[in-house]
């Protein structure tokens, strides 16, 4: 079973890896095609993404809106910076809670791994404080790192 790894790196990075049983092209499309994104980028059970804008070209807009059907919701906006089909995406994004969080700069790599794909997300936050806040409030994207476990405390 493909296991996700998630770790902090230095003071401002978060790195996530996950293997998929599909070729890089498919995983890449699932990250850029709004119809596909809406099917999986949902966070905890019960949330849906009624609005998904993903203009997969340099300077293209990103907008994801989530609701939980119980009156709660929030959205993420961002821009694509670089796209190399089907191997690499660089984009920035910020959460609106409702005030925008500082930009999270994300490089997503899709590397062929046998029959499948190794996905690697490398996030860069402006500073350590922002990273800690993002990990604390990264909710629906579930972006977290257990400082506790990662730094060998328990």
């Amino acid at each position, binding site marked *: 079973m493909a296991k996700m790894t998630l770790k902090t790196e230095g003071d401002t990075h978060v790195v996530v890896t996950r293997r*998929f049983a599909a070729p890089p092209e498919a995983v890449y499309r699932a990250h850029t095609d709004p119809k596909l994104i809406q099917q999986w980028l949902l966070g*905890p059970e019960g949330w849906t993404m009624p609005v998904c804008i993903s203009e997969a070209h340099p300077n293209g807009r990103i907008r994801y809106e989530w609701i939980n059907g119980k009156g709660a919701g929030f959205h993420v906006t961002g821009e694509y910076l670089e796209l190399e089909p089907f191997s690499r995406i660089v984009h920035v994004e910020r959460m609106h809670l409702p005030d925008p969080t500082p930009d999270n700069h994300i490089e997503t790599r899709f590397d062929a791994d046998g029959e499948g794909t190794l996905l690697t997300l490398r996030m860069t936050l402006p500073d350590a404080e922002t990273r800690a806040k993002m990990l604390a409030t990264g909710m629906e994207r579930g972006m977290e790192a257990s400082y506790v476990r990662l730094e060998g405390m328990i």
Partner: protein
Amino acid sequence: MSTLDTAFSALSDPTRRAILARLAQGEATVMELAKPFEMTQPAISRHLKVLETAGLIVRRVDGTKRPCRLAKAGIEPIDQWLAMLREALAKNYDRLDSVLANMKPEK
């Protein structure tokens, strides 16, 4: 601020995270904690104060020393919260597995 906000704010500093990592190996005094860092004892003491206020460490009195150790009660809620968030991300990727399984290759 909520307890978690206070805790995460305390965790946002690399020195404080390093102090916690050291304390994971067992109790330590201010002098022992100051040694690996190029910091004065008062500077370390200030960091300890932040960690203590956030409920992440507790200190006891031992003669003139006040050794510190991790506060299990303060660490556990963070660990549970993070486990929940990790779960949400893992769930996204489990869903992506199904999405990929249903995609027809574009030929």
